[in-house]
């Protein structure tokens, strides 16, 4: 299973990390990097990754997306959905041409975000994006594999009818080799604890794999470990939380206000969780060998890093540490599905024991504790039963 960097603000950290051998490629973000700058990047940074076209809101000029030739606003200043009736072909050409120019590993078909679930949404995506894109790729005789982007809303997972509709739609596109799946995350907790969501996400991935499609999961967080048992082709690592959890807000033009500094968190592969830095000191004081609960890396995040004001724009240590540790953790997973499942179950058991030890002295909050692990365990068991059927 591959690991891609879900890049965003501070793409330099991902590039540095990738150059140091962490991750298998980069997924580029038009709202964060100029079209020309991306074109000018060294090929070896681009050839293993791909572009996330980010036409989710079609005509929202967020960040640097306007610099891209395929940005709809560049075709027509007040471009809106109905314009796709006429301009879908030219849009496809511009978007594919740009991707070809960069020699990315995959060609990606964009998708439009929809807050609701209108019944003609998928058919529109076919007409607006899938058909013109596939036709143009055929026209230019490119042999690159094609990935179809899709934002998977919760209801597409938990509602049987909706799920069937989406799966039938994805698998009907003969020229498409795989999907770039983005699970929309509207959960209030940092870890996903919803059994229905997680279980159905696994089934969703499995169905696509049964159809011999490539499955690349974007904007993933630690639950990528859970997704791994459905054998997707790749997951992502991202620095900021909004790169590890997809929310449409990031693409909306918001009033320019100061970004509130998030609490610094440290990822532990042993705990399968990001722990708020505020708990490091109590752990240090109250728990023997507290550093055993965390990982080591050249970034020494336990000793070298102290979160201060706006640390998240200046300090890269917690992120690079996570890139390194998580990439290693994913690479250590077996390529055998059953072994992977057994390993994850054992890891969860170990993590829960470690949390029990921590919580004998330190009272962790809901976003730093192991409360997600029981849900993961239940999901794994349920999925295992499905596999045996």
């Amino acid at each position, binding site marked *: 299973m591959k690991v891609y960097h879900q890049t965003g603000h501070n793409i330099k950290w991902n590039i540095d990390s990738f150059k140091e051998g962490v991750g298998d490629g980069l997924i580029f973000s038009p709202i964060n990097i100029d079209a020309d700058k991306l074109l000018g990047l060294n090929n070896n940074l681009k050839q293993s990754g791909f572009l996330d076209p980010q036409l989710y809101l079609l005509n929202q000029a967020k960040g640097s997306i306007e610099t891209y030739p395929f940005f709809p606003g560049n075709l027509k200043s007040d471009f809106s959905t109905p314009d796709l009736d006429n301009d879908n072909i030219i849009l496809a050409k511009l978007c594919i041409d740009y991707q070809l120019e960069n020699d990315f590993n995959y060609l990606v078909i964009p998708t439009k975000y929809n807050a609701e679930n209108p019944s003609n949404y998928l058919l529109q995506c076919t007409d607006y994006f899938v058909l013109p894109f596939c036709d143009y790729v055929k026209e230019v005789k490119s042999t690159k594999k094609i990935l179809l982007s899709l934002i998977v809303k919760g209801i597409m997972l938990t509602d049987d009818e909706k799920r069937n509709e989406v799966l039938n739609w994805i698998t009907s596109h003969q020229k498409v080799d795989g999907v770039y799946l983005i699970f929309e995350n509207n959960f209030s907790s940092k870890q996903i604890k919803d059994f229905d969501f997680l279980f159905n996400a696994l089934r969703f991935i499995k169905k696509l794999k049964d159809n011999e499609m490539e499955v690349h999961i974007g904007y993933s967080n630690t639950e990528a470990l859970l997704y791994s048992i459905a054998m997707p082709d790749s997951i992502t690592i991202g620095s900021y939380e909004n790169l590890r959890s997809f929310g449409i807000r990031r693409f909306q033009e918001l009033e320019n206000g100061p970004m509130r500094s998030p609490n610094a968190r440290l990822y532990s592969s042993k705990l399968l969780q990001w722990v*708020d830095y*505020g708990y490091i*000191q*109590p752990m*240090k*004081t*109250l728990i023997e060998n507290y550093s055993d609960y965390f990982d080591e890396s050249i970034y020494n995040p336990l000793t070298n890093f*102290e979160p201060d*004001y706006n640390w998240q724009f200046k300090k890269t240590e917690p992120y690079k540490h996570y890139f390194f540790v998580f990439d290693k953790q994913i690479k250590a997973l077996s390529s055998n599905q059953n072994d992977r499942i057994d390993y994850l179950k054992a890891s969860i058991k170990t993590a829960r024991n470690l949390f029990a030890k921590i919580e*004998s*002295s*330190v*009272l*962790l*909050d*809901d976003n730093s504790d192991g409360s997600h692990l029981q849900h993961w365990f239940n999901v794994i068991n349920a999925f295992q039963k499905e596999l045996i059927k």
Partner: protein
Amino acid sequence: MFETELEMSLMFEKYLKANFGNAYLKECQGLFGVPDFVFYAKQKQEVSIISFELKLRNWKKAAKQAFRYKSFSNISYVVLSSKSANAALNNIALFEKYNIGLAKFDSDSYFEILYKPELGAPYSENLNQKLVETIILSRKKFKNIENLVR
């Protein structure tokens, strides 16, 4: 009975002033969590910090927040509205385990300590220092602090 947490907070502030003095800060930012009230007692250069987390109901959430304040406080208290205090009392073991104070407070300004924690050292010298620096020059008065400590 309190309608809102704000109502509870205002009443409690009055109670604090009347009984413990005005050496306190409200909703300090930049620490670990945001304590509703941070009370300080200065003895020469020594500063003792007592933090309070007020909640109408959710005792467990309050306890988790109060634990955070132990990073920079010597004592941390959960103050619940009397109505919800029983639920917390049934789980007093948690408060004992983590050495978190528990008190109830109602709209009659009736304040009762249900569990008195031991005085402890803040877990983060850094955060504690940061807080101490902001209050070291304060001349505000405090009294009766010893009643809050075992």
